[in-house]
């Protein structure tokens, strides 16, 4: 019998995976997963099987984001069912292998939770990425993590946008959780960033253990930032960028950007201002990997999501 009105029943999270190296040059995840593959004591919890896994070993070997195509965009239904074997791009082959081991995506056999470890060159601090506003289990986990690391901050980015949402490695699981920690240059391992990610995972696994033991989590409200729009750099006819993220916007992830605020600075010092209709909260500001994806930053709006009470089935 639940102590709370409408408690959502969720199956026990028995199988959990921790992905590192989905982008081969994002070093916190690569290092943590390699560490845990050698010695997994730190990630063991009662009633949970936790599997650390390097998703893109060729990219890790070359310390590059990807070899043929971005693995973290590769888990589309078309790719997962494509035929062609060795002729397929490396990452599409990898996506199919990962889907076999940890999925199939969308089926009852899929892993319960996948944590996908990422770094960004943007000044985003610790960010958890949520793919569905209706995943009460994930919302409760994120609420737990935020409270556990307070006063240190951990923000939640919700990417549920029908056009901007993408098919991530973690989307194979029933409850996909993205961990994005920055700023860190690609190819560099910063101790503070590495330890911050480690602490977040510790709390995430603690939550799963408590949940699996039968703890009921009361309803809660989680502040999230919902993805609105992708803003590209101003470019010339040859698609070369003609302005840089403005010094007033650089490093100001999650801070309000108002219409009229400086947004870009041309190479000869002129200011280009934000022309939107209202205040937005930019994130992924000046991420190295997004120049080729035509993205200088992403706009978000703040929203409060209510998570139902949850309890294991």
């Amino acid at each position, binding site marked *: 019998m639940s102590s709370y009105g409408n408690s959502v029943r969720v199956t026990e999270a028995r199988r959990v995976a921790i992905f590192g190296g989905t982008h081969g040059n994002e070093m916190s995840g690569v*290092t943590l997963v*390699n*560490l845990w593959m050698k010695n997994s004591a730190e990630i063991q919890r009662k009633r949970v099987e936790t599997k650390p896994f390097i998703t893109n070993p060729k990219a890790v070997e070359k*310390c*590059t984001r990807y070899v043929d195509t971005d693995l973290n965009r590769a888990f589309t239904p078309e790719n997962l069912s494509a035929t062609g074997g060795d002729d397929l791009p490396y990452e599409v082959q990898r996506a199919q292998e990962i889907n076999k081991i940890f999925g199939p995506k969308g089926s009852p056999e899929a892993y319960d939770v996948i944590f996908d470890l990422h770094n960004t*060159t943007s000044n985003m601090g610790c960010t958890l990425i949520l793919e569905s506003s209706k995943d009460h289990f994930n919302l409760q986990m994120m609420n737990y993590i935020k409270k556990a690391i307070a006063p240190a901050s951990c923000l939640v980015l919700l990417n549920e946008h029908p056009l901007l949402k993408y098919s991530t490695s973690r989307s194979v699981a029933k409850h996909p959780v993205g961990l994005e920690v920055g*700023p*860190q*240059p*690609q*190819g*560099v*391992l*910063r*101790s*503070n960033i*590495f330890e911050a990610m480690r602490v977040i995972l510790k709390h995430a696994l603690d939550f799963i253990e408590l949940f699996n033991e039968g703890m009921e989590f009361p309803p809660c409200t989680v502040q999230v930032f919902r993805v609105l729009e992708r803003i590209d750099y101003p470019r010339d006819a040859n698609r*070369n*960028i003609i302005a*840089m*993220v*403005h*010094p007033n916007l*650089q490093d100001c992830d999650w801070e309000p950007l108002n219409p009229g605020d400086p947004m870009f*600075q041309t*190479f000869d*010092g002129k200011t280009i201002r934000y022309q939107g209709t209202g205040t937005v909260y930019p994130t992924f500001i*000046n991420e*190295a*990997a997004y*120049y080729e994806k035509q993205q200088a930053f992403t706009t978000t709006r703040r929203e409060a999501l209510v998570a139902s009470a949850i309890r294991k089935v």
Partner: protein
Amino acid sequence: MEPVSFPPLSRVAICGGTHGNEMSGVYIVREMQKQKVDQKGSVSITTVLSNPRAVDACIRYTETDLNRCFTDALLSGPITDSTPYELRRARELNAQLGPKGSREAVDLLCDLHNTTANMGMCLILYSFDWISLHIYKYIQSKMTSPPVRAILFDIPSSEAYSLESVGKHGFTIEVGPQPHGVLRADIFNMAKEAMDLSIEWLQKFNSGSAFEGGEVEGYTLVRSVDYPRDPTTNDITAAIHPQLQDNDFKLLHKGDPVFQSFSGETVKHEGEDLYPLFVNECAYYEKKIAFHLTKKITVTLPSISVKAD
């Protein structure tokens, strides 16, 4: 010290993209080429994207580090089918901007670089190059925040391996911190200002200004320190300690922490007090360098002016 005079310095080369993912130089050179900048007063300017293939792919290099290809030995000798792209490119650059050591070489070669290390604005130059040292002194007097520093090398020209050694005089402008593949406006503006001041100095020099001598301070390399590594896999087993991270140029004393292992142990600095730099530079992991250790030296400069005809 006796004043020294030099002939006019009328030909300068501005190089960017020597490492294809160090974005300030790539965009400064691209902009200058777009604006067709080829003359500023008495100074004729050649702009060069040193490693176009690496720039296109936004990587440091395709086969081998271009900025290690300019020793006399590597610039001569046969070219075969298996000669790496960057070695061929080094020969092309030497023909275009040199030849190194000859009268035809450009008067000044200024090579633009970025680092992931928190080094602010640095010039890297040769301690016997009085022109470059005077330009450093000039830039230092005009750019006060962040402070401008000099890293001084004392190797004979024949053994000098980097691009700026091709010019009669030359230095690298190294600005950080900036992730590779990222273009930051603040870093771009700093690099551009240093480059503009260098050209301004040349114009003043050519028009007859005398530049007073004096003492300048710089840092010279003592040794480099690698990451602690696993003896079987060679994987690193520690990260730069949080107290050293971002503290380039802050004096390291014996007992100060330098690494923090993944299992939490601290590795400490042994030996004499030294200044660390290039702390946690991305490209140096493969060169087995976690940071360089340097000492401060003082160089006395003579006054210089242009040789009257």
